[in-house]
């Protein structure tokens, strides 16, 4: 079978399985909260670390670009807009593609090669309901929360940098930030991050469940999950920009 046809066949099977698994609430519901903690809450430190440095660099870069040509309070505009619309969701997504995508692929891959997935099936439990659905739903629900925190921290670190390292007051930074602010700036980033969460968790699950051949196979699946997750983020980022902006 050709690769595109094979991919479409697998995607079709996954769509059918996903529909069936969603209806099997008694199986996935007890798993949802633990997965929200694991994929969401435990990812907060990584996301905030990325956000802090994104804010610092953005403030410094924008002040460098704006020297003499544009009023310096536009640093607030650029930091806020860039963090909310693009860098907050995308860089958080990239960081979580590594953390969440790799975690999910390695866990499910290990379960696959040690026959735990087969064991689930023999107990009449769908791996899609027990393993995939709670992870994908948890990522969809938690990525926007983590991204919102990253956005806030990114803007705060940009403000802190601007007011301490640049010749800019808090009033000017806030003036810049409010100048072109639209509510859409926030929800656009959060919608994107939810789609990133869905893609990263799905790629992780797909790669993990397709793992074969012991530790080496799990390693390959993990790499594949991270690469596919990052690619999916970039494609979705462009898609949302085309559709929503």
């Amino acid at each position, binding site marked *: 079978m050709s690769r595109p046809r094979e991919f479409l066949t697998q995607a079709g099977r996954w769509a059918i399985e996903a529909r069936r698994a969603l209806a099997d609430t008694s199986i996935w519901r007890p798993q949802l909260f633990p997965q929200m903690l694991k994929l969401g809450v435990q990812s907060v430190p990584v996301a905030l670390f990325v956000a802090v440095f994104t804010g610092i660099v953005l403030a410094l870069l924008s002040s460098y670009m704006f020297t003499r040509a544009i009023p310096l309070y536009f640093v607030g505009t650029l930091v806020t807009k860039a963090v909310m619309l693009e860098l907050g969701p995308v860089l958080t997504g990239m960081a979580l593609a590594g953390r969440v995508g790799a975690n999910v692929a390695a866990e499910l891959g290990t379960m696959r090669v040690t*026959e735990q997935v*087969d064991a689930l099936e023999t107990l*009449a*439990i769908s791996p899609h309901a027990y393993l995939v659905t709670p992870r994908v739903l948890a990522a969809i629900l938690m990525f926007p929360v983590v991204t919102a925190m990253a956005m806030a921290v990114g803007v705060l670190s940009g403000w802190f940098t601007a007011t301490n390292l640049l010749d800019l007051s808090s009033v000017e930074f806030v003036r810049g930030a409010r100048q072109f602010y639209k509510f859409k700036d926030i929800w656009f980033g959060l919608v994107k991050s939810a789609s990133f969460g869905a893609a990263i968790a799905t790629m992780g699950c797909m790669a993990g469940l397709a793992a074969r051949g012991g530790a080496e196979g799990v390693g390959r699946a993990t790499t594949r999950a991270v690469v596919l997750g990052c690619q999916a983020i970039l494609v979705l980022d462009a898609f949302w920009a085309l559709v929503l902006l």
Partner: protein
Amino acid sequence: MIEFRGVHKAFGAKVVLNGFSLLIPEGETTVLMGYSGTGKSVALKHIVGLLEPDQGHVEVDGQIVGDLGYEELMELRRHVGYVFQFAALFDSLTVRDNLSLGLRRQGLQPDVITRRVGESLELVELPDSADRYPSELSGGMRKRVGIARAIALRPSYILYDEPTTGLDPVTTVAMDELMIRARRELGATSIVVTHDLDSAFTIADRIAFLYEGRIQQVGTVQQIRQSTDPLVREFIDARPGTGGPA
């Protein structure tokens, strides 16, 4: 009753089952025996639909497994206990939860589940291990928990995939006794994949010898012991070079 009819299965260029046909009688223990890589475990996985044949089919209680819809396949699996070669216990769950998972799926009440878990752990002589995690158990204990997980379901069929591989002789004998006890107390039809001769002769009502993806000989323990088939003889006498694979 389980019946394999002309089952062919290949993974890429490697043909594993090549016209495999076998009838598994009700209420008996049938041992699938043969060299490594002759398709014993692959045959077992066809019974619960973990693998689909390329040709031929497998019938369980008159139903062709490959023709079953999703719900029907789930229903069939509820009647089959599967003991995996390396137990395949869920790492993140305690022994109790490993056993409870399938029972909850069957819609049993919590008090029934608690009783079943206790009884099953008693049967495998691990009554105090309910709150331990698989990583805290020895290989033999893990295999016994795997059996407990299968028998807790009170299945009509129990499939054992190399239950004694990698165990010391004393634990192997204990596992044999456990399989005999499980069959006696549950009355389940058992299929055991093994290449452990002593174990096979102890637990089997019938032995099916596989070679290159098909049945070479089927018979009672006595018939297999006295077989004149050169391939079977070589396997039993452990004399390489008289007919089996090089």
